[in-house]
């Protein structure tokens, strides 16, 4: 018997679902009627004009092919390649994200190590954490006076919490026996932090980082719709204003693909720091 591995069978099933889905989508979209077939009445009432409608997948693929074969063209403020737009978004996400990591991981270490710091900072964290990152936008625009940095600030503020909380949780939960191993070997506090606490807490910290990058990528689209100018969020909104739904659908798919790529990078990192007891 020809037995395919589980992965092969799953891939085959995915492919079948994809093709089936695309076929249904394609068949549900009514074809645009040619102008010649219209009655005079219809022509007079504007029925012959190009109607905006949800495009079939074939058109989306065609659009994707066009865009992806020349992703980095720049023909003025309103016409840039998809690669440039995504590049801007990734730049903003990573800037805000790394600034957040720079603050959240050391601060999380402190909170995790010191019960008094935990108790003192916890009320602030609990109040600030549930605030929608976009609620900061007006304040950020007013204080920073720069839309670029305001967007980065919004990313900073939304990605800081999962990293902060997970780092504190991971550090506080390090098995006491391992800390005792460090103590009985007279490791300095710096060496204890890097040799014992950091590796022990790393899986929890990286999980926090993974959650953060996911949230940051969710938020950047909305932030760029508000801020405008460049970026994938702006691109989606701009194409909506152009009533170019093909581009809208294409960019939605691109948002998904980039988000998946960012997430899987952290998946690799997670596997690297994982350990079994």
């Amino acid at each position, binding site marked *: 018997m020809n037995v395919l591995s589980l992965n092969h069978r799953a891939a085959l099933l995915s492919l079948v679902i994809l093709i089936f889905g695309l076929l249904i989508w394609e068949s549900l979209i009514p074809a645009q009627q040619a102008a010649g077939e219209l009655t005079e009445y219809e022509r007079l009432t504007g029925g012959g004009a190009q109607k905006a409608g949800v495009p079939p997948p074939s058109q989306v693929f065609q659009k994707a092919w066009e865009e992806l074969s020349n992703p980095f063209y720049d023909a003025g403020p309103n016409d840039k390649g998809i690669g440039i737009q995504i590049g801007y978004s990734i730049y903003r996400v990573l800037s805000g994200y790394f600034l957040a990591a720079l603050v959240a991981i050391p601060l999380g270490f402190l909170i995790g190590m010191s019960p008094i710091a935990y108790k003192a900072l916890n009320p602030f964290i609990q109040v600030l954490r549930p605030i929608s990152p976009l609620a900061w936008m007006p304040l950020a625009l007013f204080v920073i006076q720069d839309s670029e940095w305001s967007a980065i600030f919004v990313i900073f503020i939304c990605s800081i919490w999962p990293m902060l909380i997970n780092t504190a949780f991971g550090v506080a939960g390090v*098995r006491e*026996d*391992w800390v*005792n*191993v460090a*103590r*009985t*070997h*007279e*490791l300095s506090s710096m060496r204890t932090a890097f*040799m*014992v606490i950091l*590796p*022990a807490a*790393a899986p929890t910290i990286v999980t926090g980082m993974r959650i953060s990058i996911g949230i940051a990528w969710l938020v950047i689209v909305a932030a760029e719709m508000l801020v405008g100018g460049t970026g994938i969020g702006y691109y989606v909104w701009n194409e909506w204003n152009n009533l170019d739904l093909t581009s809208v659908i294409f960019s939605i798919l691109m948002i998904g693909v980039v988000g998946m790529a960012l997430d899987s990078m952290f998946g690799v990192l997670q596997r690297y*720091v994982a*350990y*079994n*007891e």
Partner: protein
Amino acid sequence: MPKPYLSVERMTQRYPDGEGGELTVFENASFSVEKGEFVVILGHSGCGKSTIMNILSGLADASMGAVIMDGEEVSGPSLERGVVFQNYSLLPWLTTIKNVTFAVRARNPTWSKEQVLAHSKKHLEMVGLNEEVFNRKPSQLSGGMRQRVSIARAFAISPKLLLLDEPFGALDALTRGTIQDELLKVWAGTNQTVFMITHDIDEAILLADRILLMTNGPFARIAESVDITIPRPRTRTEIVEHPNYYSIRNHLVQFLGKRSKELAGQTGAEENRPEIVHYENTKPVRGSKPKLAS
């Protein structure tokens, strides 16, 4: 009389019992260990063996009393007191060899990389581990192998005092036997002072020069110190034929089964020193009654 190598003087440990009162684990306990001696402490669980271990290692502080080792008072953990815990002595994200080298490097900061590596390998090989497992993580080793690594690490840093906290408690009987033999072999080549907790009588007789017997808590104390008058080198098949073996074993069984309960409770003495029990030609020779410090 020269001072003993390790001396515990009137150690008392009390914890708040959560209801405003205090729970006394042990009170005014005194005992000593000589250099190069292998001392095992036997007692029921909950009698405070691990508390004694934590105080000796410096990981915990006694409520009162002092621990003096080699003329210095013990305060805080140190490389001079190596500890092998029942579990989790190894860092799971480091390979076997790195679990040893980090300790050797901490002990000898001036050594070169090659020296550290050679010293670590030597000690791993001494407990019967070979190159094959050096690059494995602890999770890829059996429980017995993990404890061998812990023991190798402890001997590699040659502390003044080696503390073993039920090191074989989590192992199956056969593996336990093999590693006890390994431990005896490694220990015989050194002048290492060892203090070990166990609740396995046969293990205690095989390994120890002297067994300290603890009464049940609270107010536990080390009631007796039994000399194991069986010559070394010992093997588990030969010691059972020694005339003192059954008398000693019987004494220990009686103590743990009956007298640990009868002797339990507060003595009110200013200092609780163990009574010395010495079996000569199967007859017990009891030592002086506990000396009271004036």
